[in-house]
């Protein structure tokens, strides 16, 4: 090739780079995200709670399992330890330090949320890839099963699964919440896999005799993951709320020495008239964390959605 055509190529290449300055899709999305106040608020909240959960053993002023204010509890008169020196939020129904319980509770809540989302994501990836890549009767069978699961309201399904276990604990909660999310991920992935299957670059790969395995895992799957990742951040919020709901309904860990927000909320409902603060703090935390994940997920979806680009 002559140097002249090289120059032409270089020029046209510059033009092609103009709009996105030679950055990858992820980098372009990150640039949009960085300036998005919604994302900043959401990620700040999430980051704050993650740091809190990690540092909570050091931050908590007292052991959340020891009823050190037990002598102030008078069950007959419905008396619960008030706010006092060393206990900025007071105590709970059995005299344990409320602040410590809320702080340590963040660990359980985040753990449940993240694990449930990861398990749901893994299950959804397997089913969605199977359905999207194989098509035919595999697709039909998987998707009908998914439809059945989707036709049952999420929380109801989670409660039913949670109730299956004779001895509920935090892991049965995680499992129950995760299973509910599997069909959502599976359906989403299958949809974008199907779109990929008929895309030009998959046809081009087939025209090169590329093996089915690498067409699925190298050409179809990576291109289909975008919406699934976004859904995962949104599911984090849902998982936290659903896990809290299960604990609230008594399907969570019965051992209340390890605090969990949903469980604290459930125990607080007996005294909500006289001591609303027992419900206020864990409920507020659940709301704020869920909001943080939702804001983060929504702004991520917007940033990765090619249609919303200006």
């Amino acid at each position, binding site marked *: 090739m002559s140097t002249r*055509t090289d120059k*032409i190529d270089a020029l*046209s290449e510059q033009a092609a780079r103009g709009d996105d300055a030679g950055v990858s899709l992820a980098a372009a999305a990150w640039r949009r995200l960085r300036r998005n106040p919604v994302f900043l608020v959401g990620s700040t909240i999430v980051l704050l709670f993650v740091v809190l959960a990690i540092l909570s053993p050091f931050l908590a002023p007292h052991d959340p399992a020891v009823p050190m204010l037990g002598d102030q509890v008078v069950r007959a008169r419905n008396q619960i330890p008030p706010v006092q020196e060393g206990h900025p939020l007071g105590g709970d129904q059995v005299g344990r330090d409320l602040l410590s319980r809320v702080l340590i509770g963040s660990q359980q809540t985040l753990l449940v949320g993240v694990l449930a989302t990861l398990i749901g994501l893994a299950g959804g990836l397997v089913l969605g890839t199977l359905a999207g890549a194989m098509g035919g009767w595999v697709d039909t069978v998987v998707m009908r099963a998914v439809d059945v699961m989707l036709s049952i309201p999420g929380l109801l399904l989670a409660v039913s699964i949670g109730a299956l276990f004779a001895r509920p604990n935090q892991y049965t909660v995680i499992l129950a919440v995760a299973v509910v999310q599997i069909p959502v991920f599976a359906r989403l992935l299958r949809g974008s896999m199907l779109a990929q299957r008929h895309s030009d670059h998959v*046809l081009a790969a087939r025209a*090169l005799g590329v093996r089915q395995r690498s067409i699925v895992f190298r050409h179809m799957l990576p*291109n289909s993951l975008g919406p699934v990742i976004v859904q995962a951040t949104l599911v984090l919020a849902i998982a936290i709320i659903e896990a809290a709901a299960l604990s609230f309904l008594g399907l969570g860990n019965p051992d209340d020495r390890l605090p969990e927000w949903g469980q604290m909320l459930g125990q607080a409902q007996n005294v909500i008239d006289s001591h609303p603060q027992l419900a206020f703090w864990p409920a507020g935390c659940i709301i704020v964390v869920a909001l943080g994940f939702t804001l983060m997920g929504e702004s991520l979806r917007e940033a990765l959605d090619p249609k919303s680009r200006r």
Partner: protein
Amino acid sequence: MALLEVRDLSVVFQRRGERPFTAVDGVSFDVEPGQTVGLVGESGCGKSVTSLAIMGLLAKRGVKISGSAKFDGTELLSLSDRQMRDRRGRDLGMVFQDPLSSLNPVVSIGLQVTEVLERHRDMSRKQASVEAAELLEKVGIPDPKRRLSEYPHQLSGGMRQRALIAIALACRPRLLIADEPTTALDVTIQAQILALLADLVRDTETALIMITHDLGVVAGLCDEVNVLYAGRVVERAGRHDLFRVPRHPYTHGLLASIPRLDAPRGERLSPIKGSVSDNIPWTTGCAFAPRCPNALDTCVQVTPAMEPDPVVAGPRLLRCHNPVEPATAAEQEIMS
């Protein structure tokens, strides 16, 4: 024996509850090693379906393929999926229309080239990436080592098409099918890509099937041209013969509808009236008859057969009851 012998190839799309649609109807042609054969026609005339059928890339369900496509003596249409997959990319290469959407957006150019090399030429990753850089250099991509680690969206349109050609040629296929390889490119790049294809075909003795609606591309590249209409070949001729003396009214119309630089200003283009959808089925006559300026009564009653041209000499075939007279064709050439 020809490298590729297509005989009576038909493709029928059949959906439950719908009338079957014949996209390709008894197409026959040969491709010799090193020869460039053009398939020309409007959108929807069956060019791409023909090539996809030869490559075995059409869906299995709802598609009926009949006839024969022999590659080097092997019947491609009866090969198993696995055998066909082994041949695709190694013996048969294909270049697609839109270079951006034909490249995987999340995989680097390098990996897309080496993938084929590892698959068909049993190269190690290291060997493959050395070979990949050489390939990119051969198709005129400057600084190939850097390009290998880049992604499709970082390349210009021309570069992308070069990269696609490099990938298609990676395993030195003996037959390359180029499906409108220049349609998505601007004219200067088109010329470069065509020159590149011509060079590569000449240097490596690769046979090339050029699918296009652009007669300019045909004029520049093809040895033999098949003009398709509604799934059938209506005229076959060498490129010079075809341009000098178009005989089928459809070919004639295609040539007349191209704007020319040397035509007087203000002269109106003469388009072919109607659209491909104004067809009558081939079974009841000539499909082009409703749009044909030369149509006779016979044209809607008797289906014309593919026969040697009765008037003009040369190795050419024609499917027409009332072809354009060579004289008038020549006259119009002079007039326009």
